[in-house]
């Protein structure tokens, strides 16, 4: 086991570029992979080497294990970083890398297998001593059996697909009489999405926060936690804003240590090494329950990097190369506050419908305390084949209040033209007194959006005339271009006469 020399990044978009950056800083070589849709993608431009995988559908490219391994062999890559999503939590892929003698930068295939299924993860975590939400230990496919169990747990309950992710196959059930129909719809959605219709049932913790703990282990048995992230601001069970530290910690001295300890125990029970995240539901009173484990680098890892001062990707690569963790638990300290906004190509004014297409203009925020992990550039056409995330805007400041103000400043500097984005959503949330007070729960955003469905505030009265001025100027300039095409003038003249 030794530090890899050349690392293939089996991913795309911002996370591929983020990994490439650290690979370069470590003096190692990077290999990007790409589908037809991504030939001109930023991660391909910025990598040292690049390998074409195939057609645009993920099954032909980023999810295609044989093609990715072939690319790694062709480029003599001795390690693969899976990023997040795609194959990152696929035990078979990790095993295939192991078999091919290629270092998989992540946990063992065995750990992924143990923690990949939610029911198995619950068993492992429980055995490790982590508190878990009352619920089933096995997946269920029979609605009648589900009804019996739910009655035993007590309502409200959550139904969740065993193989699930991204909010698919999830249902909240408030009353016994709704259980059967909701169970059936969850199960069929799970079957459609994951080829596995089995569902588990959990007690629903009302107004719960999503608080997760970053853990890190090496191959020598050392396991630490790197503090928590609060990810309670979610839309349809998808994280939208993440931050570290969680505002909950200031209210409950010692809670971070207790949660960190529980997370480390759960990870240890799975024989875990490399980066991982243990997700908890936490109540305002400071109780917490194991939710699931993500056996990979998390989208929101930058907030942990900013408060701990660590480069988690560097640490992943070093640990995968056999290095011991260069610190003990007592060496870890958190400084200040970090917040991340996930910038998506989607239209908040139209039910958050995805808005792929060409980015015609782009102005990116920078300056003090601003980190932008982006995967796009002006002129790039956001493909419709993948997740519509464009970038992650992350800020750090000495306090949470200052971090919020900094994020608002950075958002004001961010302009993305040509496609719709959710930038305005963040302007809404960051202005909310309840968000600013840190009073969060996983239903927070859905509730907010219900009360403010038309959340684009009307501009001040002096703004539209300014817009009109710029618009007139723009059209004046476009006119001479039209003049170069005489037939267009003739057509316009005719149209005018017809009026």
């Amino acid at each position: 086991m030794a530090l890899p020399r050349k690392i293939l990044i089996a991913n795309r978009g911002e996370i591929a570029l983020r990994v490439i950056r650290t690979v370069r800083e470590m003096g190692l070589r990077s290999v990007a992979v790409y589908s037809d849709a991504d030939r001109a993608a930023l991660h391909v431009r910025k990598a040292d080497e690049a390998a074409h995988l195939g057609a645009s559908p993920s099954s032909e490219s980023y999810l295609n294990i044989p093609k990715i391994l072939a690319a790694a062999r062709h480029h003599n890559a001795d390690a693969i970083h899976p990023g997040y999503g795609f194959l990152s939590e696929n035990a078979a892929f990790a095993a295939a890398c192991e078999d091919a003698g290629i270092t998989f930068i992540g946990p063992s295939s065995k750990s992924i297998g143990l923690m990949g299924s939610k029911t198995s993860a619950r068993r492992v975590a429980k055995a490790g001593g982590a508190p878990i939400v009352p619920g089933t230990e096995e997946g269920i496919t029979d609605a009648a059996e589900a009804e019996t169990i739910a009655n035993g747990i007590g309502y409200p309950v959550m139904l969740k697909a065993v193989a699930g992710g991204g909010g698919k196959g999830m249902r909240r059930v408030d009353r016994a009489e709704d259980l059967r129909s909701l169970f059936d719809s969850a199960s069929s959605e799970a079957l459609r999405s994951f080829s596995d219709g089995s569902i588990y049932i959990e007690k629903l913790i009302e107004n719960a926060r999503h608080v997760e703990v970053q853990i890190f282990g090496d191959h020598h048995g050392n396991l630490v936690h790197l503090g928590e992230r609060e990810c309670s601001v979610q839309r349809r069970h998808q994280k939208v804003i993440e931050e570290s530290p969680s505002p909950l910690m200031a209210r409950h001295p010692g809670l971070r240590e207790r949660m960190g300890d529980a997370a480390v125990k759960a990870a240890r029970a799975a024989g875990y090494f490399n980066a991982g995240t243990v997700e908890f539901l936490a109540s305002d009173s400071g109780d917490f329950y194991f939710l699931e484990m993500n056996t990979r680098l998390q989208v929101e890892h930058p907030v942990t990097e900013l408060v701990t001062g660590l480069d988690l990707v560097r640490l992943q690569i070093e640990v995968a190369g056999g290095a011991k963790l260069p610190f003990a638990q007592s060496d870890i300290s958190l400084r200040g506050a970090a917040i991340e906004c996930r910038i998506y190509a989607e239209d908040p004014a139209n039910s958050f419908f995805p808005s792929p297409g060409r980015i015609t203009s782009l102005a990116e925020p920078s300056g003090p305390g601003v980190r932008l992990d982006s995967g796009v550039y002006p002129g790039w056409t956001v493909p419709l084949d993948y997740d519509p995330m464009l970038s992650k805007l992350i800020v750090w400041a000495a306090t949470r209040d200052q971090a919020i103000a900094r994020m608002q400043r950075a958002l004001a500097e961010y302009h993305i033209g040509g496609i719709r984005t959710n930038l305005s959503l963040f302007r809404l949330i960051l202005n909310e007194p309840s968000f600013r007070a840190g009073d969060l729960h996983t239903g927070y955003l859905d509730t907010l959006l219900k009360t403010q469905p038309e959340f684009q505030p009307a501009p001040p009265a002096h703004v539209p005339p300014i817009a009109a001025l710029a618009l007139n100027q723009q059209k004046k300039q476009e006119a001479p271009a039209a003049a170069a095409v005489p037939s267009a003038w003739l057509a316009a003249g005719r149209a005018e006469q017809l009026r």
Partner: protein
Amino acid sequence: MSRSTRINGSPVVPPSDASLVECEPGVYSILHAGTSFEVYVTENCIEVDGHPLSYEIKDPRQWTRSAGLAGVLGKATITAPMPGKVVRILTAAGHVVTAGQGIVVVEAMKMQNELKSPIDGVVVKIAVSENEGVAAGAVLAVIEVAG
């Protein structure tokens, strides 16, 4: 001038005493009454200091619009904004719907997206069926103003 500029749906007269300079293509710095504005003009939107605004220009020589004008002719056609798969149909031909009511759910980019009626009216036609793949621009449904 017969040109009329509408911002966010209302006619607007630009100030005559402002200083304007185009810094980058489509990016303007405007100073007016001591205040500094940064304006981005794109094909479908104007952004003034982060406020997104829709616009229309009526001009003898040009007609540009950015706001969807669905409904002005008494009819709205709901089309797929991108390729995807119809996963659910939430109404049926002949049903009365209100503006904002969901008509069809399309899955695209790994997300389910509800397409809504832009007008109050009656569903004239549902042009697709569940589980059908649709191309960008494909007509999904047609709604007509009632009466």
